[in-house]
């Protein structure tokens, strides 16, 4: 599953054989509207998956089902051996292992950056405050904004806020990181700083599922690109093959639209 060596000069991004997330025949309806149709997916530890597709294709819905922000009506979702049902205990266990980064950051505006980061470790993992703050500062340095610790989210730029959001999820030491269009609400200058953080994360071996339109990112770090349309997985392949050799007509149409601007 690793890229051919002459493609890009990057670290060895090998993927293990262990399945972290399994989605079997997942179907979801919003009322009478069938929004996800027969989704089947196996996510291996260390894998970086990019999901792309036109708007309304259900790609955000798929990842939101993984941490129960949305409920699926049929099929199974199994995370780390735990099946995701309406059992609250399972849901909370699974949510601890999955981190999520949102399109609109969703930082807590009434808390400082540091408080945003230590909140979950203190209240969910029962980490002592000193330890949580040390961990938080560590992650803030990793996303390159340690000096912002005492500020409030409203005082930061969009790119900085998104990096804080990534650091906030990382503080819970998740096994999988979900990204729901993380750069779609950002100005072009700020997209790079967020993507750099995500690329670094990928190179360190984090299992990631990313819904994004940033195809450059997909080409650089993804193991697998999945194309969804109208609630279905239409095509998936490794990035090279996906971009140069799309099989389905819908994929071809989508790629021609999305890559024409570059």
């Amino acid at each position, binding site marked *: 599953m690793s890229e051919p060596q002459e493609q890009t000069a990057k670290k060895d991004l090998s993927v293990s054989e262990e399945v972290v997330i399994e989605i079997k025949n997942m179907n979801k309806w919003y009322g009478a509207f069938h929004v996800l149709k027969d989704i089947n997916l196996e996510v291996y530890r260390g894998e970086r998956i990019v999901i792309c597709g036109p708007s309304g294709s259900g790609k955000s819905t798929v990842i939101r089902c993984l*941490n*129960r*922000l949305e409920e699926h009506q049929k099929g199974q979702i199994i995370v780390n051996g735990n099946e995701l049902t309406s059992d*609250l205990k399972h849901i*909370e266990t699974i*949510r*601890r292992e*999955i*981190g*999520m980064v*949102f399109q*609109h950051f*969703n*930082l*807590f*505006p*009434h808390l400082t950056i540091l408080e945003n980061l230590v*909140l*979950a470790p203190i*209240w*969910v993992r029962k980490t002592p405050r000193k330890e949580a703050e040390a961990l938080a500062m560590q992650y803030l340095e990793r996303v390159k904004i340690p000096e912002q610790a005492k*500020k*409030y*989210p*409203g*005082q930061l730029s969009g790119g900085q806020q998104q990096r804080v959001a990534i650091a*906030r*999820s990382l503080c*819970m030491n998740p096994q999988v990181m979900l990204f729901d269009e993380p750069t779609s609400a950002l100005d072009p200058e700020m997209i790079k700083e967020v993507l750099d953080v995500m690329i670094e994360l990928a190179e360190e071996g984090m299992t990631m599922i990313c819904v994004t339109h940033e195809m450059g990112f997909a080409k650089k770090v993804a193991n697998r690109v999945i194309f969804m349309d109208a609630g279905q997985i239409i095509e998936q392949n490794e990035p090279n093959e996906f971009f140069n050799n799309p099989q389905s007509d819908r994929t071809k149409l989508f790629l021609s639209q999305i890559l024409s601007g570059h």
Partner: protein
Amino acid sequence: MTHKNIAFFTTEQLPSLAPPSNTVGATAWIRQNLFSSPINSIFTLLGLYVVYLTIPPLLNWAFFSSDWSGTSRADCTTGGACWVFVQVRLQQFIYGFYPSTDIWRVNLGFLMLVALMAPLFIEKTPRKGLLAAFLLFVYPVIAFILFSGGSFGLSVVTTDQWGGLMLTLVIASVGIVASLPLGVLLALGRRSDMPIVKSSCVVFIEIWRGVPLITVLFMSSVMLPLFLPEGVTFDKLLRALIGITLFQSAYMAEVIRGGLQAIPKGQYEAAQALGLGYWKTMGLIILPQALKMVIPGIVNTFIALFKDTTLVIIIGLFDLLGAVENAIKDPAWLGMAIEGYVFAAAVFWVFCFGMSRYSISLENKLHTGHKR
């Protein structure tokens, strides 16, 4: 294609000049706000005339030709306000029928309250949580023992002897402190997904919001004894406190629900994604933001509650207004109605305005980058 030469550049830095004299300063303000158009100018002059007609006579009546010292009706010699009346009856206005020998207990109680509350307003005070908890749970017990006596060698003073400003403050503070948490629970319950919780909260809120407070007090005083077994009585003040608290918590619930609705869904989702359960999400993320947002509505409800305490006259409790009305009926002080009501209004205004100003300062203090 344009035939004009549009290219332009300059190296000169234009100096910063002072603005024209008639656009800044007092003259500019007067011009802009009072005399900006013919109609506004007419209104300004009209307003000044109304002020001239009303304020000087009012000040004259209240302060300049009024009587401040004396002991009886006969000392009201000038034609203005006779504040002697207020001064003579002051003890009743403040303490009601509380025995004179024990007034020190009331003073002590309220002094304690002020002393305990003052540190909460100072930034540097450590362990504010502990102080607040003490104030919320231990102080009421101390105050109750102080005021009603019966232990520690203090003589018993039954609650129907409590009256005046003291009673108003007791009812208002209990009502305010109790209705806020109850309102929060009701608001959360009304937004809950569990049908039984939701419908009970809706029913509670709609019933208590639908009836006037007077009927609540009246029913608690007259109807409740009919349902209780023979010989069992409920303290009258306690009945009033329960009725007022339940009544106000329904209003508070709706104010808070407005705030909860205004919190973006993303906040709930981020909290859920981090693994925070329902109560932690509400307590750490949602309620701090929602309550901050509806401070104007909450303080509004508090101010209304403060003034609603006057309705306890209906069940025979004499709060500040009740004490004033009682004094007005005294044959030795006929014709003092205006002074009495003005005094009562002034006291209420001081407290309500104080709450209002505090709310503004609270909003400013909590405006910690909340707006994105």
